[in-house]
């Protein structure tokens, strides 16, 4: 850990790594559309922002490649039903059950639907011949921890138990998510391990939100910069955890960085931008996975802000990033 500065050592005045030129240009052009310093009061507005309107126009069938179904399944004990978006190849290239990508959407724990960010797993699934199941979970602050992660876990249980109903292979479920969805995915892997639930084939943690303490050097370095800064992060975690945020009593199933034991987890792909709040917590999490004897692949994309490949998918670094996802999945699934 010598290379990673200790918590709280950095000052807010440390210069931030520059954004990649193409990413900086996209950010400049779209700066009023992305969350930077989000407060609790901004959440209702953000839930109705222009992003939602664009998502409504997303072609989930990808030109007819997928058959799309919204399925309501039972929720956790005493909780409402969960909506699963299921996209399966209409004409699979191979016979037999298909690998499943179980997707957990992002949105800082406070916004989003199972459509948010699903275009990327759909792209993988088209490439790899897989089914995508994207879970809708209850959002904070109306539904604090553990509501979101319990919904996500319950959705995975249903997916594993009913995989044959949609042509999926329960033995080959890859769990994946970006941002808050990445944090929930990491938590899902811990929960599935500890409850002896379905064992995912792998976990894809894209710029995951892992640490409620919100005080790594990159958190301080990127304050007021890029996408999803320290203030927004505090808003998201406080919505999920209330006054417990940053305190001693936070569960690893809420903030996976808090986990004492990272052994026995499925192989992980982690990536993060070098110019984002989450950089240091993601690098640290990958290191701890290796230290626990785990399988993990970490990519730190130089000059990447939070969620850069979604905001500027055409940029050279975004294309490299997205290719890295597919390549890793191809190696994992081995087809």
């Amino acid at each position: 850990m010598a290379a990673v500065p200790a918590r709280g050592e950095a000052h807010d005045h440390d210069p931030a790594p520059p954004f990649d030129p193409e990413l900086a240009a996209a950010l400049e052009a779209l700066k009023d559309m992305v969350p930077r310093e989000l407060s609790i009061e901004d959440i209702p507005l953000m839930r109705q922002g222009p992003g939602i309107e664009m998502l409504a126009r997303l072609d989930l069938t990808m030109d007819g490649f997928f058959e799309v179904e919204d399925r309501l399944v039972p929720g956790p004990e005493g909780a409402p039903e969960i909506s699963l978006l299921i996209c399966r190849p209409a004409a699979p290239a191979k016979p037999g059950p298909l690998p499943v990508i179980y997707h957990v959407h992002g949105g800082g724990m406070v916004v989003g639907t199972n459509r948010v960010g699903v275009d990327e797993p759909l792209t993988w699934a088209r490439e790899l011949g897989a089914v995508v199941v994207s879970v809708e979970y209850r959002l904070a602050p109306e539904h604090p921890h553990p509501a979101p992660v319990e919904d996500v876990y319950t959705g995975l249980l249903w997916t594993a138990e009913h995989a044959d109903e949609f042509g999926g292979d329960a033995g080959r479920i890859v769990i994946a998510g970006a941002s808050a969805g990445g944090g929930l995915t990491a938590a899902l892997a811990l929960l599935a391990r500890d409850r002896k639930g379905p064992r995912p084939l792998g976990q894809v943690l894209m710029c995951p939100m892992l640490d409620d303490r919100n005080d790594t050097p990159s958190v301080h370095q990127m304050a007021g910069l890029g996408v999803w800064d320290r203030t927004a992060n505090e808003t998201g975690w406080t919505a999920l955890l209330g006054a417990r945020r940053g305190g001693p009593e936070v569960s690893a199933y809420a903030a996976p960085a808090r986990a004492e034991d990272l052994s026995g987890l499925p192989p992980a792909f982690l990536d993060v931008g070098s110019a984002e709040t989450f950089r240091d917590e993601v690098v640290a999490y990958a290191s701890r996975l290796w230290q626990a004897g785990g399988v993990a692949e970490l990519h730190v994309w130089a000059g990447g802000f939070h969620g850069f490949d979604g905001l500027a998918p055409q940029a050279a670094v975004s294309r490299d990033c997205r290719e890295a996802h597919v390549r890793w999945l191809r190696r994992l699934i081995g087809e």
Partner: protein
Amino acid sequence: MKELAGRLTAVDPDAGAAVRVIAYFDTLAEARAGLEALVRGAAVLAGCPARLVDAERRVRVRVEPDGRRQDSDLPPDPAWPSAAVVPGGAPALWLERAGGAEPSVVDAVILERAAGALRLVLDRTRGRAPVSPTDDPALVETVLDPTVTERDRLHAARRLCLDPDDPTALARAVAPLGGRPRILRVRGDARDAGAAGGAGLPDGRVGVGPAVPVLGLPGSWDGARTALRFTAEGSARDPGERVVRADDLGGIALLAELIVPGAEPPPDVRDLERAAADSPWMLATLHAVASTASLRSAATAVNVHHSTLQDRLIHAEALLGWPVRTPQGRLRLHLALTMRHLARG
């Protein structure tokens, strides 16, 4: 998520999009982004392929709207919206948008901003633009330098794609005035550019050395530089050949050793200068007399009637103090004109 173009138009299709385009390219330029990033920006913002073609600098970049680099050898369609990278220059940046209608406001802003940013990058990187090894000035200089060891000259020659092991492979050194040395390969049929015609030679005054085996190129370079001293602008003030081949000089080449550039010129040259100061037609007329087969041909060459030429030559002989229409006088004139070139500083 939707592509950037989709986001831009989804939010505000008109003026706001133009403002965002400007912000996009300004930020790229500020971060000193490269050519591909700029062409990609044009493709992504326009939502159609964009391409940059700068033949002179050997730059060819084409990017699909999804950001993929995919170059094409097909010529651009003149109907596509386009912009010059140099003000007033030929189109160099295209948006591959079919239809041939007037470009939209947003397209026009994209082209204008991208072209401006591309121009800065091209200007900044022009000196470092990739050159083929056959143009590498350092290699050429090595092959022409007699003080470099044979081994190093042979190594450089191979990198220039000259084959020192083939005894029939010959080359010539070429000395352009004020330009970098060049090397011309001599093809087997001997009808190489240095021997016939001017194809493959740079513009302006050029001396061409003799065809030699690769290790003889320092000698060919000496010959080329000597030949260059015999060249002229080909203008009224400086009539003569722009391209002179060392092979064609023969014994005349010896004059180059006798005349020191910039030193006091020989008396016949001083006579010539005095005569030239008298009439603007003088030098061209005398050059025509010295370099054509007959006075009739000389009259045609300077575009005057035969009798006018006779009048001019009577006047010239009076100023020079020696005849130009006798065989001996014509030789003296030829030598004087040649020494005038050699005596230049």
